[in-house]
């Protein structure tokens, strides 16, 4: 990156099943205004707006950023729309950050959202296409066989996924913005929930949420200004990377995709990370289905291949008692406004680095990893943020 850049403002809505009190414009504006106020800024201070969301059929509005231009204060400014499947929230933050890192802009507002209650995401994913196998079971049905392949390959016991489901929901109890607050969550509750896609029980899957996330990305001078105006420190971006691989071809490893490994390698090179488990104080990783925690622990190099489930089983990813807290916010398993879910991962790392995560704050978090994936796990977006200026 040529210019230093940082997260200087953060906003998010409470995630819930139905935000019937607001339009799509009202939803995104809520997060955007909160991010601007956090940075001590107004819409007039923003140079460009970058919007991300998952497929437009999730709301039934084609290219909705056009209609959102005024609500996001973008009139007379550059407005940009990113769509890279489930990784989009992360990709959107990266595209916005490059606008600052390249020196093109000084302050960029980036917003991601989904208002799933306006439509039905599962069936929007399953529109029949000529000459293609319909994906009639939604995302869970797609990922369940890949998870079974992981279990077979690693020899992981069947309860690992349930342990992740419990852990992330316990974390969510500390996050007032999380959609699911299940105070009685335990292994039995997960096990007793209906089996949706073997081995995934209902409580091992993410919810459907309405929600929006927003960040202000600023240059070095914008970060200094925001810090002096608000007294809140910036979260410096130490590296960012995206990788994609083909959806289908003979030999593609869908359990441990090379695009994810390559993306992490590029990211770690930029950020000077050599031993992720030691170098990061926390991570927010896209885990929409419970088993993706152990799978991504391996893919992101937190342990050797085949050992991810052992870390989960040992409680290493717990906020309390774990050495590498994962998804302190409750993660995608606790809030899933799809288009915003990736940005929430990135946003939560910035919140931690700025020391503003409240009850789910990891003490003295100095360097954090944000990761998002999408499609059939062939799209990856990642960043590293830290307290220290890179």
């Amino acid at each position, binding site marked *: *990156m*040529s210019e230093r850049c940082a997260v200087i403002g953060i906003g998010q809505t409470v995630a819930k099943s139905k935000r019937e009190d607001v*339009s*799509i414009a009202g939803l995104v504006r809520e997060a955007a205004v909160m991010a601007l106020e956090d940075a001590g800024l107004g819409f007039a201070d923003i140079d460009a707006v970058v919007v991300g969301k*998952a*497929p*437009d*059929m999730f*709301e*039934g*509005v*084609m*290219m*909705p*950023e*056009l*209609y*959102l*231009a*005024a609500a996001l204060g973008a*009139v*007379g*400014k*550059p*407005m*940009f*729309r*990113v*769509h*890279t499947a489930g990784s989009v929230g992360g*990709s959107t933050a990266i*595209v916005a950050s*490059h606008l600052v*890192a*390249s*020196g093109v802009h000084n302050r960029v507002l980036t917003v991601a959202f989904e208002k799933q209650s*306006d439509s039905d995401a599962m069936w*929007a*994913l399953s*529109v029949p*296409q*000529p*000459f*293609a196998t319909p994906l009639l079971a939604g995302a869970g049905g797609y990922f369940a066989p890949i998870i079974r392949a992981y279990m077979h390959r690693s020899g992981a016991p069947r309860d690992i996924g349930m342990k992740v489901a419990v852990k992330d929901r316990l974390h969510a109890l500390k996050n007032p913005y999380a959609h699911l607050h299940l105070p009685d969550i335990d292994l039995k509750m997960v096990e007793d929930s209906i089996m949706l896609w073997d081995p995934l029980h209902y409580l091992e899957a993410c919810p459907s949420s309405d929600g929006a996330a927003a960040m202000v990305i600023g240059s070095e001078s914008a970060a200094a200004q925001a810090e002096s105006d608000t007294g809140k420190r910036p979260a410096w971006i130490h590296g960012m*990377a*995206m*990788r*994609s*691989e*083909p*959806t289908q071809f003979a030999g593609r490893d869908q359990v441990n*995709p*090379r*695009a994810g490994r*390559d*993306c992490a390698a*590029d990211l770690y090179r930029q950020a000077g990370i050599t031993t992720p488990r030691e170098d990061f104080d926390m991570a927010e990783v896209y885990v929409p289905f419970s088993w993706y925690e152990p799978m991504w622990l391996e893919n992101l190099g937190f342990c050797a291949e085949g050992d991810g489930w052992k870390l989960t089983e040992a409680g290493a990813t717990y906020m309390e008692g774990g050495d590498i807290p994962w998804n302190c916010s409750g993660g995608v398993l606790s809030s899933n406004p799809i288009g915003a879910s990736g940005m929430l991962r990135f946003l939560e790392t910035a919140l931690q680095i700025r020391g503003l995560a409240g009850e789910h704050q990891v003490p003295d978090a100095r360097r954090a990893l944000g990761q998002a994936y999408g*499609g059939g796990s*062939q*799209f990856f977006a990642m960043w590293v943020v830290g307290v220290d200026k890179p």
Partner: protein
Amino acid sequence: MSTFPGLTSGHRPVGVVSFAQSDLVRREAEHNDVEMLQPVVAEVFGAIGITKDDVGFICSGSTDYLVGGPFSFVTALDAVGVWPPRAESHVEMDGAWALYEAWVLLQEGEIDAALVYCFGRSSPGDLSEIMAVQLDPYYMAPLWPDPTSLAALQAQAMIDAGLATEADFAAVASRARRSALENPKAQVAYDRPVETLLAEDYEVAPLRRHALPPLTDGCAAIVLAAGDRAYELCPRPAFITGIDHRIETHALGARDLTHSPSTKLAGEKAGVAEKPVDVAELHAPYAHQELILTEALGLGEGVDISPSGGALAANPMMSAGLIRIGEASRAIWSGQADRAVAHATSGPCLQQNLVCVLEGV
């Protein structure tokens, strides 16, 4: 030592070094999007003797609603074949904005070349219904206004304001379709005088058939390269000396439809008026919109407007903007122009506009 044109301060010189487009046709029924794209991607690389391994970034533009299914860009990536995995991104916008994203990344200096591609087919659905879903979902989309009716409101506003006449619209269409006779990719090209065009029936008054864009299936691709790499790949790269894009409010009632302040501002930021312009490729789907754009960009006599025929010759959704940049670049490569302007638009009645200034040395 390579020489580069004067750039907006601090910008790294980045040029268009290759451009390819599919046949632009009413109905591409025999090939799916990947099959339509694959030869175009092969051509854009093959023309300059490189492969996907030589670009550090890939960015595409498309929209799901044309395909009628989610994630239209996912399988399209197979036209490139991203193995080993690649740094790649996608915009739900015209490919011109995908090019903008690639240009931004090239500014940072980590990579020296990028592939941009885009695709869109109008034929699988009813475009007049599909585009209505692009409008404000609460107040406009439920009325199902089609794009031609909205454009007609804009054209009527121009007439009411005394800014243009129906004969002016016909003159634009007559010139564009005549220019298109020289464009082997053009879908609609003819040599008809204004009087003949004015004898057509109205489609939606005051717009007659000639003032409307054709329905087009097609795709396009561009390779961008930075600094010396641009000269290695192209004897006379079309360097981007300025590029900017701006949006207006979506609410048509809150806009003065007879002018395009977003185009004007983007043109100023891109430095259009700093030096004379030889060629301007404008993305004006409806004939009257060319008049709004030439005014907004301050393009006077002596500027060759849309020698390709522009969007009136062929209007592949999500690609017509990038194709303008490609056509303007070709004018630079051939020496026909030293300085060219390319424009892309999105949204109803020119809501969002991108302006790109290209120069050859």
